């Protein structure tokens, strides 16, 4: 069944969202290409392969109320030593900017970076998404505040960055924009955390754009912990130079309705990309991870692993595309996606897509969807574990491959959210 929005409907949505973002406060000017794309790109429909399982007609009803109060939310993973920045509904509310001058590191809100160093943000800070995807175009047409990390060539950012974006209670829209630039042979680690209250509604349409220079390292952990009924669209775009190393781990701890588009472009030889993710929708939740890696140059490597569970009447989607360009010889690309269904009415749509135009490559992919192993459950219970403890252990074991890659504080937090949501703690 397909659903098509009329042009007036999605134009009205774009106008409502842009107005709300403008009146709450934007950072920088609307991206001209995005504004034009909003007109030329149609609203996504389930007739398009990329949106086949993702019904966005429901977002047409999002109608934000007055601007959110800018009260800082409680700190997340408070034990983690980090450069902390807090944003509420696309507005900067707290954090100490690190500014080492025009040739040094900068970590702070995008709004401050734009005021102080506009030239450092120019060339790389808009992704293809902004002109090719309707929601990404909407984000770029009215961008709001997020964290900006600029590490010049040869520098190492000593402390990790933790950017916490919070959606307060009520019907709000937020379009935060996070920008990360790691110069040649530089390195940084960051955590991008988004959360909401249980009474939060509306839409979170967020972009992460990162450029990683030659020989540079970026390690990024993305945590999405959103009770309430916010619709979350994520546009995560990474461009890597030669010999660079990128690790992106995404934990969807809780989401009412969420779509992540992650795109990695290996724009140099010998680039190395690791991208792992986990998700566990329950109730009537919907979680969709669309990923794409472009091996555009020779000798790159990629390691993709997404694991998830779908419980109750929830729906999970995984779509992983590996594009190997004609000249990308000798690349190695691995993709694995494993899913467990915990409810008879839970649904999982999993699709690996490999397009290979080079002839000397190593690509592999594996995709499985199954059910809880009853025999294992009985084994654990016969050793005295309660059903709760046994379920918990099995879920922990299933997700360990992904979760163990996160910092222990984050791993434990995400697991505790899963256990609580399934009523197992």
């Amino acid at each position, binding site marked *: 069944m397909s659903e098509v929005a009329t042009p007036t409907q999605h134009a009205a949505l774009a106008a409502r969202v842009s107005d709300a973002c403008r009146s709450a406060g934007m950072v920088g000017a609307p991206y001209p290409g995005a504004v034009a794309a909003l007109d030329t790109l149609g609203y996504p429909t389930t007739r398009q392969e990329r949106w086949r399982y993702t019904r966005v007609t429901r977002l047409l009803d999002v109608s934000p109320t007055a601007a959110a109060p800018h009260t800082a939310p409680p700190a997340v993973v408070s034990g983690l030593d980090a450069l902390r920045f807090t944003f509420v509904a696309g507005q900067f509310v707290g954090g100490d900017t690190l500014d080492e001058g025009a040739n040094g590191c900068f970590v702070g809100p995008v709004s401050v970076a734009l005021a102080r160093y506009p030239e450092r943000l120019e060339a790389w800070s808009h992704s293809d998404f902004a002109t090719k995807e309707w929601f990404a175009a909407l984000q770029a047409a009215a961008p709001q505040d997020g964290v900006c990390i600029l590490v010049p060539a040869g520098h190492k950012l000593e402390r990790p960055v933790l950017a916490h974006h919070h959606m307060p209670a009520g019907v709000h829209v937020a379009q935060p924009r996070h920008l990360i630039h790691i110069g040649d042979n530089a390195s940084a680690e960051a955590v991008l955390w988004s959360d909401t209250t249980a009474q939060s509604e509306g839409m979170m349409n967020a972009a992460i754009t990162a450029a990683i220079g030659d020989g540079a390292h970026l390690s990024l952990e993305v945590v999405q912990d959103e009770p309430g009924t916010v619709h979350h669209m994520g546009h995560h775009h990474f461009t890597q130079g030669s010999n660079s190393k990128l690790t992106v781990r995404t934990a969807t701890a809780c989401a009412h309705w969420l779509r992540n588009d992650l795109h990695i472009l290996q724009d140099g030889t010998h680039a190395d990309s690791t991208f792992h993710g986990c998700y566990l929708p329950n109730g009537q939740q919907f979680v969709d991870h669309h990923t794409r890696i472009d091996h555009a140059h020779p000798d790159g490597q990629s390691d993709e692993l997404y694991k998830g569970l779908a419980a109750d009447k929830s729906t999970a989607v995984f779509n992983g595309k590996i594009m190997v360009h004609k000249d990308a010889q000798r690349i190695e690309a691995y993709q694995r996606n494993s899913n467990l269904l915990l409810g008879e009415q839970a649904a999982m749509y999993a699709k690996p897509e490999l397009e290979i135009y080079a002839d000397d490559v190593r690509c592999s992919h594996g995709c499985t969807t199954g059910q809880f*192993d009853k*025999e*294992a459950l*009985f*084994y*654990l*219970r*016969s*050793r*005295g*574990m*309660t*059903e709760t*403890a046994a379920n918990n*252990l*099995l879920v*922990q*074991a*299933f997700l*360990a*491959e992904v979760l163990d890659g996160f910092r222990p504080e984050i791993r434990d937090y995400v697991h505790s959210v899963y256990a609580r949501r399934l009523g197992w703690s």
Partner: protein
Amino acid sequence: MLKIDNLHARIGDTEILKGLSLELGAGEVHAIMGPNGSGKSTLASILAGRDDYEVTEGSITFDGVDLLELDATERAVAGIFLAFQYPVEIPGVSNINFLRTALNSIREQREEAPLSGKDFLAKVKACAQLVELDGKLRDRSVNEGFSGGEKKRNEVFQMAMLEPKLAVLDETDSGLDIDALRIVAHGVNSMRGADRSFLVITHYQRLLDHIVPDFVHVLAGGRIVHSGGKELALELEEKGYDWIVDAQPTEQA
């Protein structure tokens, strides 16, 4: 300690146990032998609380408690342990984490304080030595990539850790070479005591050379058809089961 009375059980439409009665006293070791398909493993599964089987008639009491009212977890808490014929592999859960969770889950349900990390590790060390379980196997995922012998030793290791009142060994000898058999038997023998009973289910007499039972029962057609002392096992080894099974009155249609 365990009293099974006129037990009837089926899986789907197939009746497997047809009036099985058996009594075990504290500290006793009983062996159950019998031809394939006689219901040996069904009995083990029902004792441990596997819910694929439906008990249609009869009763099981354990220390005066109606066992059929307890689920698998509660039976373990009550002190029943089943050494699986086919131990399950659980990738991602380390043997140690598994045992700590199990042990503390049992203690919590018994309203006992959890074991300290130090006491737990001391216990692990002692029990692992009992069955010569390699330190590496303790840290690996539960049974994952273990050989047949390692899996069975791991079962006895878990049994030693959990110290049950009644241990049911379901064909623990299957797939074991003679050295592994000796190790497993040694583990079991060193756990024998006045407060612990064993129900040893086996197809072959050779295990009973190492774990010498007090009583031997023959299970055929879903019932105990013959009982005797340890010498019965030797007789069965020599003559097979036919002389007993054939002597049974045929079932009324």
